[in-house]
């Protein structure tokens, strides 16, 4: 069967067929005949020309996989070419705007600037405490703080936009 894969920003065409004991794969013109098994749920053991590749695969969202192989991680998006292309062009970062998002759930212990303040790149904006560590969230660029969405004592979730610098 044919599958389209996007990895590291590039699209690759994949064709997998079973041939008795083996899988025959064509990938961007490269041809692999390999043995595949699944010793544990989510672990794919591939053997190609004697070389062993143990891949741990997690499907993080429909069609979006994270594969780790020899301590390296790959983010892979798969599409069935017969289906409609997913309209996955995200909104993208508005030029000139940079938002500061909470990297993890935690509590805002201090807000270091006010809305409208001018900040240098690297200046502290908000301090978030999680797991007993206080982490100063810094401005990713110089500019004006145009949004400031949190107050001291508030709890925030991972991904919440704390502030926006423009």
């Amino acid at each position, binding site marked *: *069967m044919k*599958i389209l*894969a996007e*990895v*590291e920003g590039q699209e*690759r065409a*994949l064709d*997998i067929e*079973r041939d008795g*004991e083996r*899988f025959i*794969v064509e*990938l961007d013109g*490269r041809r*692999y005949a*390999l043995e*595949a*098994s*699944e010793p544990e749920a*989510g672990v*794919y053991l*591939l053997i*190609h020309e004697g*070389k062993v*590749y143990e*891949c*741990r*695969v*997690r*499907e993080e969202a429909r*069609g979006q*996989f994270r*594969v*780790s*192989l*020899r*301590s*390296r991680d*790959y983010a*892979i998006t*798969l599409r069935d070419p017969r289906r409609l292309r997913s309209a996955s062009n995200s909104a993208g970062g508005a030029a000139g705007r940079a938002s500061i998002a909470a*990297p*993890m*759930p*935690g509590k805002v*212990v*201090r807000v*270091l600037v006010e809305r409208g303040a001018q900040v240098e790149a690297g200046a*502290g904006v908000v*301090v978030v*405490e*999680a*797991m*007993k*560590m*206080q*982490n*100063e969230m810094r401005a990713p660029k110089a500019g004006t703080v145009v949004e400031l969405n949190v107050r001291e004592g508030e709890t925030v979730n991972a991904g919440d936009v704390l502030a926006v610098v423009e």
Partner: protein
Amino acid sequence: MFKKILIANRGEIAVRIMRACRELGISPIAVYSEADRTALHVRLADEAYLIGPAPSIESYLKIDRIIEAARRSGAEAIHPGYGFLAENAEFARAVRDAGLVFIGPRPEAMELMGSKTNARRAAQAAGAPIVPGTTEPLRSLEEAREVAARFGYPVMLKAAAGGGGKGMRLVQSAEDLPSAFATAQSEAASAFGDPQVYLEKAVARPRHIEIQVFADEHGNVVHLGERECSIQRRHQKVIEECPSPIGDPDLRARMGEAAVRIARAAGYVNAGTVEFLVSDETREFYFLEMNTRLQVEHPVTELVTGIDLVREQIRVACGEPLSFAQEDVCWTGHAIECRIYAEDPENDFMPSPGRIAELRVPTGPGVRDDGGVYPGAEVSIYYDPMISKLAVWARTRGEAIDRLRRALDEYVIEGIKTTLPFFRAVVRDPEFIAGRLDTGFIERFNRRRAEAQTEVDGDAERDMAIIAAALASMKRRTETRFEQTDGRSATSAWRMAGRIAFTR
């Protein structure tokens, strides 16, 4: 010997202490917060008592609830572990007042050493050199500014009640002082309930070396040699070794004697650690502070001396004399420990809480893992993100690094980010292999790493990763098909099909 011991802690150290209890035939009692209902330390205990909501201030720091749990269970002694109430003299006193044994030093010694500023004065009195700095907490930002100007930048702000890097800030210049002072005070208040901070001159390229001491109630005070703890991020250790790669038995003897002198002066009993800064060039050493508890990194000392420190702690708390004299202690081989944190080393060691989807711990020759989690466990945002300590032992430092590299490569943790990839790079770093360590190691290492940008056998591996994802996707599709045709036995039907499709 005690019949029951309550462990006033959680995570790997609670598990570690329970193991020592089991080995001594003592029944271990756990306490837990609402966030820890299914935590490993609860699962491994004989009894477990809920002591409050998730935030530690409402549970693991609640002295009365912990003592009440000890009473209910009939425990005769309490082991505080490290962190939480381990260095809280009020707790030690409350335990004693409840007629229970506190497994650790007497509250008076904790008070003396617990205040970093008092401790500096005590060490000075015992004849140990100290880092230039204040012996009193700073009263104001103004005073901090004056003192810093007197010693010259860089200076180090430290929590008077603290330890473990909480409330500690390196200040490079006068402009950075106000924000660093505020953050250090606030962190100190939140971590130790005491906002006081003091200031020290920062030593250039210092090694952080500590001496393990042990004292019993019969006047015996012994040191168990040093641990090198120079590799730190945010002033918190991440890699520790025993012995120090500095490899200087004379320095060990001198530091050991100084540590024993300080412990004696403090009337110290049970396990403690005296921390020193050592100048790499001059081999001069300065007293930093004394930790009046078991250290996170105690396993490397155990591996090299063969002495079980927790077992010894319990025996000494029971009134027994030390099971060894100074001349019995010998150091064999080399041990290294890595602290596995739920943190993202690619993103400034930002905590990475979440569910551990997969966990495979290395075993085999010379490998020891002290973990506090299991596959499927949640790493909560409420507590320290350390999930495990991997330690190795071998005849030489070189063989120990070989073993550590092997063990790190075997280690599998999925679902959260961890410091494993960072350690895998460190053990391959020529500076680390050469033993050129100081507290600036990580900063320089990260610079070297960014410059290097190694590229490996990428093509085939990337292709295999894509193929694995495709197989997983094909499997999911089959699974869905089976579910649609035969709702009830979806999983088992798939499993059989999966076997046919993939394993034949």
